[in-house]
């Protein structure tokens, strides 16, 4: 099968992709799968045992993620009577979002994949947000995820044949430059660390954005699992080892120099 690495191509528009809730997944085999999301201040974990949801967590624990993630994964697996070696698929949120947070989940997932040889599916966080929206055939799903200050991560998806197609590249945008483009259309807005460096005017702009009706209230790890498994099941034979984080923002915003 194809050995194409799943590298980040934030500027590319990708093909329609299933965004099923778990019950609608075309599970042809009783998969064991673990989904990990640390891309925001929330630690999200979901575990599938033989195709059935065996456990899920979605807790805002912020900086404690680094201490709690492995004990929690261990607890989930133990409760389901699974060992890491029995996992068939790993799903990880690869950003955009919190840089350090995303790296923690990626570091765990990449190490699991290195040790167990398990296929690893990286999922864009914006797609998980889009998958929360109520499916309306032909309906647009503009997704906004706050970065720092007045910047947001943005992409627009559209429901096509029961699947979500991304219509734009994923991009880091200034909120004020994006507003005219949205033209009052309902959006899927997700904010973590609300108020982080934003001005009262920007807070008001966020508050004024109309929201899309949602089918799922949270972009939790079960949604991540569904999106990731949908992607995996569409191409099970592909080389799933290579996943890179998506940052969208240049790393050069802060330079360490010896103090002067």
């Amino acid at each position, binding site marked *: 099968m194809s050995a194409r690495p799943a590298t980040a191509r934030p500027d590319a528009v990708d093909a329609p992709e299933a965004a099923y809730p778990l019950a609608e997944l075309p599970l042809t085999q009783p998969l064991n799968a673990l989904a990990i999301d640390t891309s925001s201040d929330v630690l999200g974990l979901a575990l599938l045992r033989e195709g059935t949801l065996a456990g899920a967590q979605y807790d805002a624990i912020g900086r404690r993620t680094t*201490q709690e993630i492995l004990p929690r994964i261990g607890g989930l697996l133990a409760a389901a009577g699974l060992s890491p070696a029995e996992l068939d698929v790993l799903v990880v949120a690869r950003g955009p979002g919190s840089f350090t947070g995303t*790296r*923690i989940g990626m*570091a*765990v997932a990449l*190490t699991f994949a*290195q*040790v167990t040889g398990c296929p690893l599916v990286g999922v864009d966080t914006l797609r998980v947000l889009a998958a929360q929206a109520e499916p309306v055939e032909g309906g647009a799903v503009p997704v906004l995820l706050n970065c720092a200050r007045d910047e947001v991560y943005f992409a627009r998806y559209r429901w096509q044949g029961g699947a979500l197609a991304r219509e734009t590249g994923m991009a880091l945008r200034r909120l004020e430059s994006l507003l005219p483009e949205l033209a009052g259309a309902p959006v899927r807005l997700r904010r973590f660390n609300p108020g982080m460096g934003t001005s009262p005017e920007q807070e008001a702009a966020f508050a004024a954005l109309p929201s899309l009706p949602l089918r799922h209230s949270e972009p939790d790890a079960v949604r991540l699992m569904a999106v990731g498994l949908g992607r995996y099941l569409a191409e099970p034979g592909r080389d799933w080892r290579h996943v890179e984080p998506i940052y969208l923002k240049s790393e*050069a915003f802060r330079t360490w120099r*010896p103090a002067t």
Partner: protein
Amino acid sequence: MSATARRAGEAPLGLAIDTTFDDTSVALLRGRREVLANITLSQYADHAEFGGVVPERASRKHLEAIHPLIGAALREAGSPHAPLALSDVDYVAVSNLPGLLGSILVGMTVAKSLAFLLERPLIGINHIEAHPYANFLVHGDLPFPLVHLVAAGGHTVLIHQEDHFRWRIVGRSVDDAAGECVDKVAKMFGHPMPGGPVVDRLAMEHAPGPYEFPRPMLADPGLDFSFSGLKTAMLYFLRDHGLPADGSAAHGEGPSEGPVLAAFFAAVADVLVGKTLRAARRLGVPAVTVSGGLAASRKLRRRFEAACAEAGMTLYYPPPKLCTDNAAMVGCLAAYRYEAGRVDDLTLEGYPNLPM
């Protein structure tokens, strides 16, 4: 995922990771000091365009590099007939302080994941405590007590060690580390980071000539250092000689950089040597070790050798490769920790600062 049974009498195998600053390093050690692999990927070139380390870029590079480096270390450590596997590893060690927190978290999360998956102990290591173990790697079990000078990137500290795990910091830089001072002064002469190697070369090739720079806090009876003033002294020196301090001084008129930088480094070395021997004498310790990136300086080593010979003090020095950040020194300290049963659990935290 059970470990392959160790051959009878074979010492435990440790995997060590260091991502505290801008180098990604992975080592595999058999026992306390048989280094089977010690691979370090330096990011200096990746940060050169910014004139300093970009923390976010360092973190990103660590995540890109760490898993391939682990694979490379396993290949290097094994033989074609008996390749090493992760399941052969008996414990996983990682530096969890001090350094850039975002960088530390990458190595720490990978180490925790390995410890969890392999069902092996996790050992969190203080990177500064580990530097002197570069000497244990090459010189064997050194007798305690010891005074260590650690002159590493962001830290210049004097450590009094009475036994493994029993140590305290008896002196530290109150402002810049010595290495930072050398980097900044080298930059005034147009030399990119790291400035240590070029300053060391000039200090070896040139006599200080008529130039004289202050020895900050050397007259002070304490054991702390200060290097910020020495940097300022160089700025005044350049100003007084009508030279720019923007990196073009090396090519201007007036004093040539060789003797000036030799004189400057003589001041740095005098302070480091003087304070280290003072600490040893005051604490009644007969032997000192030197480690950290600046220990790779040949000039500094010569000064230490001469001073220790004169003072009747035993001196331990690691080879240059083990002076700069490397995971082998982390693995060496971790081997002693593993033997002593001093291990951590998966809730280990990372810290940017060195505790007092």
